[in-house]
């Protein structure tokens, strides 16, 4: 292991160890972000690309109420996705963490497996389920609960459900990892000391799983906020998110600087949120 503040040699070794990661991050994270930064202050070329002069018009254009609304919409939909994932993911993770080792592994594999399937295919599956002639509507009609189909597809709800389905494993796994580390005796101690199941959850399991919950929320929120495929397929173009804006500006409007501006705004939102998460997580760890 390399300790910080060790001898000169071991410090050089530290850089050597870190270099693959640093090179990767420089190439695929730092350079793109910096180039977005430059692009956003340039002017759109006639057929795409960028030219001079440098100006800050794009940032004032982005404050147009239409675009602000899209950003707010995206935040609401991504938050709803994260919260829905938490509501489904926490009980699932808790259930798995209470099983025998063998069943824990079987269920964790079962949760990860679909994640390896192409996500377009999995999103298309929801088209089949949710459309007016789809399985859910047909079933409800057959049992006589409804006369005419419920409009489920091409609503913000469909987008939230679709993204929840896509990213649920990213919620379950970190919460499971946190709960699995919690001493089973702690819940028994809580019952022994008179707690109900709900109180032991509220006072013991949830606080101790908090670092995992925070990671899960970020893991689901981040890809949801930038997602443009699910809003397109399940939202039917009626639900526009910030990801759609970025893509449309680059590929349809051919206004690269304006697209870069939105990409930058998206990145800024995520930086703020991840900082908040890491701060909250540190606090949760100190308490634990």
């Amino acid at each position, binding site marked *: 292991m390399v300790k910080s503040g060790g001898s000169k040699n071991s410090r050089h070794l530290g850089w050597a160890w870190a270099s693959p990661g640093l090179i990767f991050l420089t190439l695929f994270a730092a350079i793109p972000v910096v180039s977005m930064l430059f692009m956003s202050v340039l002017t759109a070329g006639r057929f795409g690309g960028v030219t001079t002069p440098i100006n800050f018009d794009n940032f004032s254009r982005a404050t147009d109420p239409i675009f602000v609304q899209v950003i707010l919409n995206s935040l609401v939909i991504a938050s709803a996705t994260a919260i829905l994932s938490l509501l489904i993911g926490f009980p699932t993770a808790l259930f798995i963490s209470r099983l025998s080792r063998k069943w824990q592994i079987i269920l964790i594999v079962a949760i990860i497996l679909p994640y390896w399937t192409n996500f377009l295919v999995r999103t298309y599956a929801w088209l089949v389920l949710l459309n007016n002639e789809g399985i859910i509507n047909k079933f409800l009609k057959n049992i006589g609960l409804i006369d005419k189909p419920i409009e489920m597809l091409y609503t913000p709800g469909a987008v939230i459900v679709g993204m929840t389905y896509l990213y649920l494993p990213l919620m379950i796994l970190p919460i499971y990892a946190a709960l699995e580390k919690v*001493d089973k*005796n*702690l819940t*028994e*101690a*809580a*019952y*022994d*000391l*008179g*707690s*109900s199941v709900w*109180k032991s959850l509220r*006072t*013991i399991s949830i*606080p*101790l799983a908090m670092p995992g919950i925070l990671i899960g929320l970020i893991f689901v929120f981040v890809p949801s906020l930038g997602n443009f495929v699910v809003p397109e397929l399940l939202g039917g173009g009626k639900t526009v998110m910030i990801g759609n804006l970025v893509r449309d500006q680059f590929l349809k409007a051919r206004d690269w600087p304006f697209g870069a501006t939105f990409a930058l705004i998206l990145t800024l939102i995520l930086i703020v949120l991840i900082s908040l998460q890491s701060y909250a997580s540190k606090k949760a760890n100190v*308490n*634990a």
Partner: protein
Amino acid sequence: MSQDLLKIRNLTKKFGSITALNNVSLEIKNNEMFALLGPSGCGKTTLLRIIAGFEYPDSGQVLMNDSDLLSIPTRTRPVNLMFQSYALFPHMDVFSNISYGLTNTSLTKEEIKNQTNEIIEKIGLGEHVKKKPNQLSGGQQQRVALARAIARKPKILLLDEPLSALDKKIRQEMQIELKRIQHDFGITFIIVTHDQDEAISLANRIAVFDKGEIKQISTPQELYENPTNEFVADFIGEGNILKATSTSSGFEHPGLGTVNFSHSIGAGKPVTVLIRPESINLTPASNGAGQITDAVFAGSKKNITVKLTTNEIVRVYADKSANLEVGSHVNLLFNPQDVRVF
């Protein structure tokens, strides 16, 4: 109402093909320090978990003051458990840990605060109230676990291997402390342990378990002096266990010869003989029954190992000044009254 606080009647519990408890019955008196002693996997922990309410027996009864305890849910049973690992809540400070059980009662915030502070003072944790469990030493953590478990004033406190995680000096301190607290709070203690020293030094009475069955229930002294079977004889204290044959007036051992009792146990049966190391006197004799193979000075005494002509090994505690050399031949002398035969 009887003097017995807890009556356990014909308790049986199986986990798959393993029988953890086989038709176990015992009574525990009010204000008693009772120990369940046995090797690991003997069923003592299962019994503890049934009394606490974490397991349910396949058959049998548990009565507290003659009323059914098993029908009372875990959370309202007048029983609390001090876990072997202490199971302190790592995200709560000492005060919150100790008051946790009281927050599940109808007490007001003020009453909870007063009662918690009272316990903290009695157990001597005053300066640590605001600390988290990981800032405390092992002994302090155990005090917190103890305080938390008695805060709800249970009728019975269950202690799972209470001293096993502590080093020797703190163990002795804690032994005295546990007795004091048991006396001060007037709670019946049931201690589960695999360590005979722990059971002997703490308990008024001990139930010795083996393979899901009770082998003997008695006071520590009785268990040592009058074990009723080979398992207890071997498990409690140091002992020499020899195989012999009974005679009409005692027993015959190929190495020790014939030993006569006043009472008969029937002739010609294979028997097990227990002789404690301190009951044997060694006298040098060139044609003796055994030869000394090892002699270790141990402070107040000498630990001598004697090999009999039958190749059986006998341990003897001798006086530290005794002139007994390795290699010399000796006779083994003992009072037949100090011998137990099963």
